[in-house]
């Protein structure tokens, strides 16, 4: 076990845990955002750099600070490590810079984007971005690509988090490659089409933090915040599919089926294409009850659970944390 201090809060975690997961154990507002790291996907993380934090003491043995900010999602904790996230001006400043970078080539077409309301990039910009832009040049654009009848790739919105690449790699067979080209000309490759035959490729839609990969059976049907999320399940015959989903409906009409995601937007268990695309009747499903959306997004507006620091972990909340908690309540 390793004991670390994160934003002034002590927490004890298993050896080898990443700083980000240690922070998630604390919960609440101190948790750094993550746009590329995705717990169920091996090898993910380290790319978007929005989770950068300041390590002010490396470990009990070697208490020197780390010279650069580190990506909390891939850096393992050491016993006695001291980390600053919201307390570090340097980390917050860097994050602001990175959000700006993620947005300079983004089309900002939220009004016509299906992801709006449950988009990690929207949330991130709202919390860490600035309202203006210093970017005057033309933005990078790509043509939309239909990758099969069910999924559309709108590369212009992509932030190259590689999550869909890992999903396709790890969940589907016969996949060859995901990213073509390099630098800001990189794009998610159409090789991905080859794997569309596969029963699990629909999961790329769920892992995509932005509106780059969307469900064609739901496109333009509704705004997500008008739909009602419900936990449901069915006996699914696809090997490897858990059959546990969230139904997004309006009245009696099921508009969309997704996997269940936790408060960090991570899929709990992946689902198959049959559940996702073919079972759009209430009668296909056994309803488990309303879905609580614990994320800070528009869809959570009516079912919003405040980010609360796990109280049993921190009996005496440091003053600065209490403050932000209270501000949120208001």
């Amino acid at each position, binding site marked *: 076990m390793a004991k670390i201090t994160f934003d002034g809060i002590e927490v004890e975690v298993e050896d080898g845990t990443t700083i980000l997961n240690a922070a998630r154990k604390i919960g609440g507002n101190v948790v750094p955002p993550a746009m590329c790291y995705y717990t169920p996907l091996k090898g993910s*993380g*380290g*790319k*978007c*750099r*929005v989770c*950068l934090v300041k390590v002010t003491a490396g470990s009990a043995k070697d208490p020197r600070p780390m010279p*650069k*900010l580190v*990506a909390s999602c*891939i850096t393992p904790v050491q016993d006695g490590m001291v980390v600053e996230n919201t307390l570090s001006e340097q980390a917050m400043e*860097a994050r602001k*810079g*990175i959000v*700006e*970078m*993620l947005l*300079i*080539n983004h089309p900002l077409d939220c009004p016509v984007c299906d992801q709006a309301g449950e988009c990690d990039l929207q949330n991130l910009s709202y919390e860490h971005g600035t309202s203006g832009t*210093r*970017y005057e*040049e033309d933005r990078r654009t790509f043509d939309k690509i239909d990758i099969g009848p069910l999924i559309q790739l709108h590369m212009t919105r992509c*932030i*190259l988090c*590689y999550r869909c690449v890992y999903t396709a790699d790890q969940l589907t067979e016969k996949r060859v*490659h995901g*990213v073509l*080209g*390099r*630098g*800001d*000309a*990189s794009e998610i490759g159409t090789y991905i089409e080859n794997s569309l035959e596969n029963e699990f490729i629909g999961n790329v839609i769920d892992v995509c933090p932005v509106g780059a990969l969307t469900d064609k059976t739901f496109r333009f049907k509704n705004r997500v915040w008008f739909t009602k999320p419900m936990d449901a399940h069915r006996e699914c015959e696809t090997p490897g599919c858990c059959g546990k989903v969230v139904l997004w409906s309006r009245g009696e009409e099921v508009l969309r089926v997704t996997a269940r995601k936790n408060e960090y937007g991570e899929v709990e268990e992946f689902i198959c294409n049959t559940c996702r695309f073919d079972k759009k009747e209430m009668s296909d499903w056994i309803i488990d009850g309303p879905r609580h959306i614990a994320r800070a997004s528009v869809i959570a507006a009516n079912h919003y659970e405040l980010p609360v620091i796990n109280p049993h972990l921190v009996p005496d909340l440091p003053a600065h944390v209490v403050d932000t908690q209270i501000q949120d309540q208001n």
Partner: protein
Amino acid sequence: MGLKILTEHINVPGIETYETYRKMGGYRSVEKALKTMTPDEVVEEVKKSGLRGRGGAGFPTGMKWSFLAKPEGKPRYLVCNADESEPGTFKDRVLMEKIPHALIEGMITSSFALGARTSYIYIRGELMFVLRILEKAIAEAYANGMLGENILGSGYSLDLHVHPGGGAYICGEETALLESLEGKRGNPRNKPPFPAVWGLYGSPTVVNNVESIATVPWIVNNTGDEYAKIGVGRSTGTKLISAGGHLNKPGVYEIELGLPVEEFLYSDEYCGGIWKGRKFKAVVAGGSSVPILPAELFLKTAEGVPRVMTYESLSEGGFVSGTMLGSGGFIAMDDTTCVVRNTWNFARFYHHESCGQCSPCREGTGWMEKVLHRLEHGHGSMHDIDLLVSISKQIEGNTICPLGDAAAWPVASAVRHFREEFEWHVRNPQEATKPGAVFNKSEAVLA
């Protein structure tokens, strides 16, 4: 004449053949190491020599070798980084082209020291003709029992392969190189784990530059202590410098570290001064990634101390008034050079070469290039100059690999030292966009 360790025999006719190379004393280090030394003894000599990696970062080679993990049941690898793609750097190419056996000898002795049974030379894809030269030399080494099973009856066996890159600068970054060698897309890996623990195919691996490896035979033959006597302080030995730009005598020079920069730049033994009798304006002293310096600050530090060619002296003054020895890619610029244009050109390179994995580098390199393009073409504003510095700060230190820093430093340093020139471009767009127009300090003051 300075001491020549790597290039002593470079002009001997036929030196590219095994026969001539051997006649000139080649492969002695293989005999000495394999027959009379233990691997640890070789590592110890390299440690004592103080040799620092010649690929750019200057990390002590002996120390890197001693960090190599040695778990049971896993192979270890030595990989030679011959990707040499940094603008301004062309020394490895010359060495491999002229004396291929020097690298092969170094690979054998070093592989022995590290306990590697298979080693690789990853060579820049554009250098196909050099790859052919190396392959021929490797075949000769096999034929003469220097490679393969049971080398010189010592019981040590080694296979050596050459592998070409696909034309990406980023594959010179050691972990991207390993990915590429494994047949994958050349994306740098997140570190830790470092290659010493998790390298090629998940095995402990050392990645070293061509020049670093080619220096090992001399150290084994003459001892590390002898090597450490050459040079100054922590900059021991000799270094190849690829001198380019506006010089009377551009070329690859082997210098003893500690050579005064004035002597290197102006003496006839080396660069022979700035060409066409023009004035010396600025220099990029260690390959395109290092900060650019105006002539005065290069010749003497901010305190007025004449600089010498060592890692320490060139970095004296830090990022405010110093630079770095880097990979030894020395680019001299005369007073007809437009720094804005040059900076734009470098930025274009880094924009083109970013692998695109991490957001600050992927987006920031392109942004800087666009702003510089605007400034160079007379559409810039004063505020763009600060914007450049701000973007470079947003990239620096926040990326997966050092390419981000390498893209940020040239821009930040150009603005720091040549701000007036950027401002002149904003104030006089018509003047500045005329072909060949260059900012002239004295005239600008009058205007």
